[in-house]
């Protein structure tokens, strides 16, 4: 039944956007994490989406979106001179992740909107499927 495929497709979007929201939450939570070396510092994580197109134009059951990978992106950790900090290295530096909270917030809103869109799609497909089931009654 094709209308159920529509729901499956939209639910792949729900999973993908949930992953995106999770990485954003992780980035925001770690915006103020301090570490002693640049290598240990937290780096912003972002999911990479890719389209699932195995079955283009077939029965449509394999369309959708998937999270390909989660990459560590963003700039180099910011070096900050703070000799009194307990995590400061021998030169008195600490390292903070290069996370822009405004960017993360904008990203979060985009993810939330896409999530809503997918839910709307599922709702419409559900209504149509229910109406199809009552055909002739």
């Amino acid at each position: 039944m094709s209308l159920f495929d529509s729901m499956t497709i939209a639910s792949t979007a729900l999973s993908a956007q949930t992953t995106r929201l999770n990485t954003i939450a992780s980035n925001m939570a770690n915006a103020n994490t301090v570490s002693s070396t640049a290598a240990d510092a937290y780096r912003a994580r972002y999911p990479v989406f890719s389209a699932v197109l195995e079955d283009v134009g077939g029965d449509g059951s394999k369309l959708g979106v998937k999270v390909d990978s989660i990459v560590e992106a963003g700039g180099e950790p910011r070096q900050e001179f703070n000799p009194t900090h307990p995590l400061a290295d021998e030169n008195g530096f600490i390292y903070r992740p290069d996370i822009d909270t405004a960017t993360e917030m904008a990203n979060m809103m985009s993810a939330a909107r896409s999530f809503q869109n997918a839910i709307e799609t599922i709702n419409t497909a559900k209504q149509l499927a229910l109406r199809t089931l009552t055909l002739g009654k």
Partner: protein
Amino acid sequence: MAGIDNALGISPQVLAIRAQRMNLLSANIANADTPNYKAQDVDFASAMRTATNAREPMTARHERHFAIGNEAAAANVQYRSPDQLSLNGNTVEPHKEHAAFMDNAMRYQVSLNLLDSRIKGLRAAIRGE
């Protein structure tokens, strides 16, 4: 069976194409944030032409056969050309996809209503009420 197929008119084919189109549109909406994704849609007019030109109603008698309607829609999938290109190569324009999705859902319901009244009419005729 052919008699009942004829009595139901073109609505079943329309519903099948509409459902197929709905899948493509939900895939577009699902991939609104996917880099390099190209939005697709069914050319409804030619899909209908393919469906109505089929000499007899299609039945899946073999595992590799398509179910009715899918072939018509599948043969007429095309890529959308966007008004504005986005930097990541994605051609989905969410507002357009939403409008098309809603439009498609409404038209699906129209066909559903037509089919519904046909079935009711047939039933009344069978019962002789």
